[in-house]
């Protein structure tokens, strides 16, 4: 544990240093980057050591007999810590050149400061071992990320995003508080150790409350509304951290609560799989409908949270139906996808960050042809896209493969578990296909073809540390995709900390699975290399010329004729129109020689659409009726307090 605290002190020191020396732009940036990345590397080392040794460290501090902070790092915490420290390390490296714009040194320093707080608070959330510590770290995490979201507060949409995020994270926190309230009522202590003594009804209620609370942080449909607003508003390395790892603290929360409750109720599994399938499919459908590249990536996080939930839900169904193989496959697949998604999503956000940084626009339909001038970014983005589509030989496939195997275990079961497994498998298949459509679209519109506007013409990539970070993450995606064995064992040890009641999880059968993935990866890599060899043999000493694209007889093509992102996705989104209504606006074409016209389309998020009439207006109505309570007279407020205390005396 001492290593862990040393690491987070180093990270905090980095943030403080950047704030203190804010006026010395280069020194402040370099110091922050060095200290934060060193701290992350140290923490990563500590977490991986704990994970491999499978030991539990704990430590506690007491202040005035009422403020009791306790920390514990078991394999589950260590797994999430490793993911967080790894991605934050890369984000810190990336930030050095990303924030080199000297126009606003203080703002940069403030961002670095809140970034360090965010990293530390996430680490503390994962190690918190009692209610007070957990909620304290949770709130610090929400607040520090709130300040990062409103980093560019001069833009109205960013302030709106910050506001939405603030409301959602606090309503979510209220649900978590309510859940902890149930814990406290039964155990009478702030600790987590006696939670299993709750009655069954209380456990189910608590789980649902926690699922809503943590689900709103993780971005589970329909509590994801804040996510596509807030994540793109932050600077890109922060978006990478928020989308890649911060939402995973919600997943950690659900898993931790599940393991504390020790109640293998099948209903939990059904709930989680259902939420996963809905989030997964709708997340990627909305992603297809986006025109803003960072918003698209944020929606795709909703999709990947769906995949993780499907895995977890299958695990829970497996536990409930006494099928240990299914349980372990489901949970370990989900955890493995946590790691994989963290890597490729932060890679994609960093790639998008480079594009936005160099072209100054987030609108995909204004871009195009960037692969020619941004080779490293482009190919890193291709690797990230292949990984996120779950294609072999990249890491996304390894995780989804394990989840699939878990799902097929459930096919042998009967009745509801069977139906749930069918839904999970078909859901995963549809998500995979839609993700492929979604990311070929991003790639095709942003990086390939010809530049659509001047913004995308002749933009080169710059910033060495940004390229390093992307290269590192891309390399990790390939290495895990080809050799998943060692990394998968890490998620297996995290599963063993879940308290599922399986004494020891044997590694041999799982080593066989990862061995098969490696075999498949080798087959495809060898065949591709072989075909490339055949191709170059046929091309030796052949005439090769360059010319314009075949325009099917049309001789004056312009780059504006290219297929747009909206038209690429139109048919697919229309297939899901009850959940993703498309709004189109265009004046009718009039006359024989119509003048220039316009066309606008927008894909609506049904949760966001229903939020105003379904939630906001009733709540507003209710609070309007209660307005008389608040009238600004301080005497009456004191009276309220007195009344509350007197009332409480009766009850306690």
């Amino acid at each position, binding site marked *: 544990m001492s290593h862990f605290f040393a690491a987070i002190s180093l990270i905090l020191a980095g943030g403080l240093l950047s704030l203190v020396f804010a006026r010395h732009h280069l020194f402040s940036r370099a110091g922050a980057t060095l200290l934060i990345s060193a701290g992350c590397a140290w923490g990563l080392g500590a977490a991986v050591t704990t994970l491999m040794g499978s030991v539990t460290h704990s430590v506690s501090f007491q202040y005035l007999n009422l403020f009791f902070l306790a920390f514990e790092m078991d394999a589950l915490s260590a797994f999430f810590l490793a993911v967080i420290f790894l991605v934050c390390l890369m984000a810190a490296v990336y930030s050095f050149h990303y924030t080199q714009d000297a126009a606003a040194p203080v703002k940069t320093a403030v961002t670095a400061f809140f970034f360090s707080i965010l990293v530390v608070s996430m680490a503390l959330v994962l190690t918190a071992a009692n209610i007070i510590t957990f909620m304290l770290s949770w709130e610090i995490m929400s607040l520090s990320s709130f300040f990062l979201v409103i980093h560019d507060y001069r833009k109205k949409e960013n302030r709106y995003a910050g506001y939405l995020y603030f409301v959602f994270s606090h309503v979510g926190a209220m649900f978590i508080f309510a859940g902890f309230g149930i814990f406290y009522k039964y155990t009478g202590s702030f600790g987590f150790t006696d939670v299993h003594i709750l009655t069954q009804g209380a456990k189910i209620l608590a789980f649902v409350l926690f699922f809503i609370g943590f689900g709103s942080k993780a971005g589970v449909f329909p509590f994801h509304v804040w996510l596509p607003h807030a994540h793109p508003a932050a600077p890109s390395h922060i978006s990478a951290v928020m989308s890649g790892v911060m939402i995973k603290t919600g997943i950690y929360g659900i898993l931790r609560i599940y393991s504390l409750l020790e109640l293998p109720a099948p209903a939990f599994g059904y709930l989680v799989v259902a939420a996963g399938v809905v989030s997964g499919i709708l997340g990627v459908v909305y992603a297809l409908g986006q025109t803003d590249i960072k918003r698209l990536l944020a929606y795709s996080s909703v999709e990947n949270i769906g995949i993780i939930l499907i895995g977890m839900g299958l695990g829970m169904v497996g536990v409930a139906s006494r099928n240990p193989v299914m349980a372990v496959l489901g949970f370990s697949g989900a955890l493995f996808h946590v790691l994989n998604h963290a890597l490729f999503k932060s890679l994609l956000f960093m790639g998008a960050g480079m594009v936005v940084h160099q072209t100054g626009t987030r609108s995909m339909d204004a871009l195009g*042809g960037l*692969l*020619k001038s941004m080779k490293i970014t*482009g190919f890193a983005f*291709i690797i990230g896209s*292949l990984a996120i589509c779950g*294609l*072999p030989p990249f890491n996304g496939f390894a995780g989804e*493969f394990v989840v*699939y*195997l878990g799902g*097929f275990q459930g*096919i*042998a079961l009967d009745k509801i578990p069977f139906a749930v497994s*069918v839904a999970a*498998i*078909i859901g*995963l*298949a*549809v998500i*995979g*296909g839609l993700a*492929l*459509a979604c990311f*070929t*679209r991003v*790639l*095709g519109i942003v990086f*390939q*073809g*010809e530049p659509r506007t001047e913004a995308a013409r002749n933009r080169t990539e710059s910033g060495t540390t940004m390229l390093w970070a992307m290269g590192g993450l891309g390399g990790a995606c390939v290495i895990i995709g080809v050799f998943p064995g060692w990394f998968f064992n890490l998620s297996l040890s995290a599963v063993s900390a879940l308290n599922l009641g399986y004494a020891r999880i044997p590694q041999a059968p799982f080593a066989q*699975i990862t061995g*098969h993935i490696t*075999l*498949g990866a080798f*087959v495809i890599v060898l*065949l591709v290399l072989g*075909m490339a060899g055949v*191709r170059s043999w*046929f*091309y030796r000493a*052949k*005439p*090769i*010329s*360059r*010319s*314009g*694209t*075949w325009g*099917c007889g049309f001789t004056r*093509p312009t780059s504006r004729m*290219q*297929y747009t992102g909206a*038209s*690429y*996705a*139109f*048919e*697919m989104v229309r297939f899901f129109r009850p959940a993703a209504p498309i709004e189109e606006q265009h004046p009718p074409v009039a006359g024989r020689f119509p003048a220039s016209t316009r066309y606008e389309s927008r894909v609506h998020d049904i949760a966001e659409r229903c939020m105003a009439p379904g939630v906001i207006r009733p709540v507003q109505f209710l609070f309007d009726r209660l307005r008389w309570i608040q009238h600004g007279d301080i005497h009456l407020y004191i009276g309220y307090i007195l009344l509350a205390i007197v009332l409480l005396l009766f009850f306690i």
Partner: protein
Amino acid sequence: MFESIVLWLAAVLTAPFFSAVILKVKAFFGGKKGPPLLINYYTLIKLFKKGSVYSVSTTAVFKMGPVISCATALAALLFLPMAGQMPVISFNGDVILVLYLLGLGRFFTIAAAMDTASPFEGMGAAREAFFPIICEAAMFMILIFFYRLTGELSFAAYFSGTGTLGLWQIAGPSLLFIVIAFFIILVTETSRVPVDDPATHLELTMIHEVMVLDHSGPDFALIELGSFCKLFFYAAILSGLILPFETGIPGAGLLVFIAGLVIVYLVVGIIESTIARYRMDKVPQFVLTSFALAFFATIITLELIQ
């Protein structure tokens, strides 16, 4: 193992021949003599001899497209049991790997099409991205059906030895549904009528053909070889399903397998000659039929094998 590799090589080498069967059938229905059965080999040789013209809009991805789409089709055949023999590679879960490998090929075909900046190719790419999503769902539904029957997740368990015969014995009626569902998937994935028309001449109405408009020379030959192999892959599965006989006489299995293949290609040719393609917006409904059939087959099986 040795036999499997020989079969794999034979499959790759004869795939162009079988595709020519479709052309012959279409010519027969048109009252024409039609091209020779070796036409596809002549085309491949002609293409391999040529050079290439590349669009100035394209990047390295454009050149990776044909290589990867061909390699994934060849890789898929490695996992496929042919003529009742064991495949070259087989393990628990190889079906999932194969489906995702074909997805990898599709990713690069689409990426190569988007690389050209051509609006037609973008249109084809959007369709190529859309229809296989439903196919994939149907494929997984079929896998669920097979898993429910056999408890295994590999092609070898379904199509090698007496595996398929066993399936017919347990769940014959519902397997008929699966055969039809699978045929719809074949038609969609390999861009045949009534989903796509490989012989059409209007770019606006094409799916697969329009995506490869800008490829030429050996690149185009690789694409053609890849699509022959992909068609062979699906046809081989169907052949195993419709003629699951295990005679025990050496060589007879191979003959039965070839007979099955010829039947599948004939049926594809007959359908192509007798019905017109569907309107583009009706295609999703057609493809969804395969999912519905596989779903009903699974539901029926639930009752059959309690």
